[in-house]
């Protein structure tokens, strides 16, 4: 057997991750950044739990928000009961409550959805998502209708001065659970069940002939995944102090699919990147432009077309080149491609923003860029942005060819060096 000093690397990676969680709020001190990072933490758990289905188990779900959302609803009611004094649960352990709720609903719905794999699974998950969403609106007494159920996370006696009132305390609560969930979900990939989930994903038939009931494997995998979805739901409940129908909606189920795919389905850490990028789009970009959803959609389409392995695959592709100390050769082509891409993006953004401004009733059609003011109802800015976009795309094409040629040359050398 080959000796591979993987464990040291693993410790380093986990240690670095913990460190990032610890110091991130010190580096980014704005309240805005803190809210965003808190949401990222909760969404990382959600996306990782989703990838337990899609990436590891081969189950394309269109209704994963059901588990996080219902986990959040149970949490919000438990929190309200705690503040009424009915019973006492420390706020820091509420994610466990949400997780158990997710688990119970996972057992309930998973029993139905995991009977079949593939397209059937996807369609049933969509159906269950719609059903739960309809129920949420149908029973306003429990679910609070459109407005949702609100709560107050500051309950009980402060423990060591921690009330979870200040945003920074919520951040560290989320960070702790996020790190613990990451570690737990990674550990699960290293178990017999985790490995058999991969096997069932690859070839369910053969899995049956080595003794495994594939339905049972899918069911257990989904149940565990629903637990972590519930943890994430509870954290978002604590963070926002409100749970509404949006939490179980198809939009949210679609969002987690988008985030996971953008990050990289084939890799464990892919969804972590995806969640960070996705929340950045949702929180940061939505503050700047009304067209953020369109940009997110375009980004998603571009990833599906050109990097189906997600951002994670793009990073991992560089590793052998870096190891061979050849990455320097790629710097120039990458920089050129990046520059060309930015030019094209600028042209695209200009045109999209003008469209949005024109479609908006009563809004001024005058926009400004770098001190220049222009009117979207006139032709010159359209021509200008159109030219910028065209020039960007044309140069991107050449830059990409250049980069690819270099890339292939390096790959050729690397292959030739192998025995």
């Amino acid at each position: 057997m080959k000796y591979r000093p993987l464990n040291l690397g693993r410790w380093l990676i986990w240690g670095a991750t913990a460190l990032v969680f610890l110091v991130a709020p010190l580096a980014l001190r704005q309240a805005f950044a803190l809210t965003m990072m808190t949401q990222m933490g909760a969404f990382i758990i959600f996306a990782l739990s989703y990838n337990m289905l899609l990436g590891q188990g081969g189950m394309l779900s269109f209704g994963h928000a059901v588990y996080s959302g219902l986990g959040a609803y149970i949490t919000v009611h438990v929190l309200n009961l705690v503040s009424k004094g009915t019973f006492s649960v420390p706020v820091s352990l509420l994610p466990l409550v949400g997780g158990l709720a997710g688990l119970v609903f996972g057992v309930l719905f998973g029993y139905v959805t995991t009977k079949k794999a593939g397209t059937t699974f996807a369609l049933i998950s969509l159906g269950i998502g719609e059903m739960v969403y309809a129920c949420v609106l149908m029973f306003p007494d429990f679910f609070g209708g459109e407005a949702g159920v609100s709560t107050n996370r500051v309950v009980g006696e402060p423990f060591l001065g921690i009330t979870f009132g200040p945003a920074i305390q919520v951040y560290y609560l989320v960070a702790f659970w996020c790190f613990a969930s990451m570690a737990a979900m990674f550990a699960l990939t290293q178990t017999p069940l985790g490995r058999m989930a991969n096997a069932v994903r690859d070839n369910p038939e053969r899995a049956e002939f080595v003794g495994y009931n594939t339905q049972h494997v899918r069911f257990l995998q989904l149940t565990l995944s629903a637990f972590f979805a519930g943890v994430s739901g509870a954290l978002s409940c604590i963070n926002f102090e409100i749970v509404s129908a949006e939490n179980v909606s198809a939009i949210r189920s679609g969002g987690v699919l988008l985030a996971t795919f953008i990050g990289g389905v084939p890799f464990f850490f892919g969804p972590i990147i995806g969640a960070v990028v996705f929340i950045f789009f949702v929180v940061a970009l939505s503050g700047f432009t009304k067209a953020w959803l369109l940009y997110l959609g375009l980004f998603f389409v571009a990833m599906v077309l050109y990097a189906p392995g997600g951002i994670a695959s793009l990073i991992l592709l560089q590793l052998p080149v870096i190891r061979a100390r050849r990455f320097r050769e790629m710097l120039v082509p990458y920089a050129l491609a990046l520059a060309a891409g930015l030019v094209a993006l600028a042209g695209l953004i200009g045109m999209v923003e003008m469209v949005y401004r024109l479609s908006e009733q009563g809004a001024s059609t005058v926009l400004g860029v770098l001190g220049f003011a222009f009117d979207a109802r006139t032709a010159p800015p359209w021509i200008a942005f159109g030219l910028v976009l065209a020039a960007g795309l044309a140069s991107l094409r050449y830059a990409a060819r250049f980069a690819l040629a270099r890339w292939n040359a390096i790959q050729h050398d690397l292959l030739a060096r192998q025995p």
Partner: protein
Amino acid sequence: MSATPSFAANHGPAIELRDVHKSFGTTKIINGVSLAIPAGERHAIIGPNGAGKSTLFNLVSGRYEVSSGRILLNGEDITGLKPYQINRKRLSRSFQVTNIFHNLSVYENIRCAELWSAGYRYSFWHRVGALKDVQQRAEEVMERIGLAKRRDVPAGTLTYAEQRALEIGITIAGGSNVILLDEPTSGMSRTETARAVELIRQVTEGRTLIMVEHDMGVVFNLADRISVLVYGEVIATGAPEEIRANPAVQEAYLGALHKEDDAGAQPAGDAAHA
């Protein structure tokens, strides 16, 4: 490794088919097959294309349900059981068309095939890397099938002959007592076939083997007894010499096959090298 199966001492047959029928719609594929294969025997099923050999395997391994009749494994009725239930009773099969876990490494393929029989089932509290018993056995199996050097290669990137070897590896990894091999040497060149025969002989030592095979060289070399299946019926069962001498078999099958073989041998050999 000579794990003598406890069933070897058992005097009943390892596999017994009692008047098994199978039809798809109105088409009868298996037409009343009765067959008893004693434990420890290497048994070959031969017959022309479309005789129902693979269907018979699919019935025994639980992939299809029988239309009527009973199938017994070590005296126990397994009719109507699911493939995984039959596998847990220590019957394992390979496939004519390579059926492996393409995205997993060779090692992972073998390990997945062992986990159930090693007793780890659906465990999500064991770390697979720490399961020394499973690991050791997987190394052993890889050594046997000649893929130890290809341990970490994704199975989908193996050569055709290597994938066929892995197919056998997955089949034997769980330590089943009854092994069903469906055309294990199909598409192999002469040298690869010879190597495969040696491999099959080794890994089925002390076990019951049932194989479907087109290559008569392989069949007469390996099998203790042979059954001839024609149009869903067993027209003869016996030792290789008996089968060779049987006029009914010659008429129904062997003559036709030799022609077929001459026409078909060359392209198959090429495909294996491609």
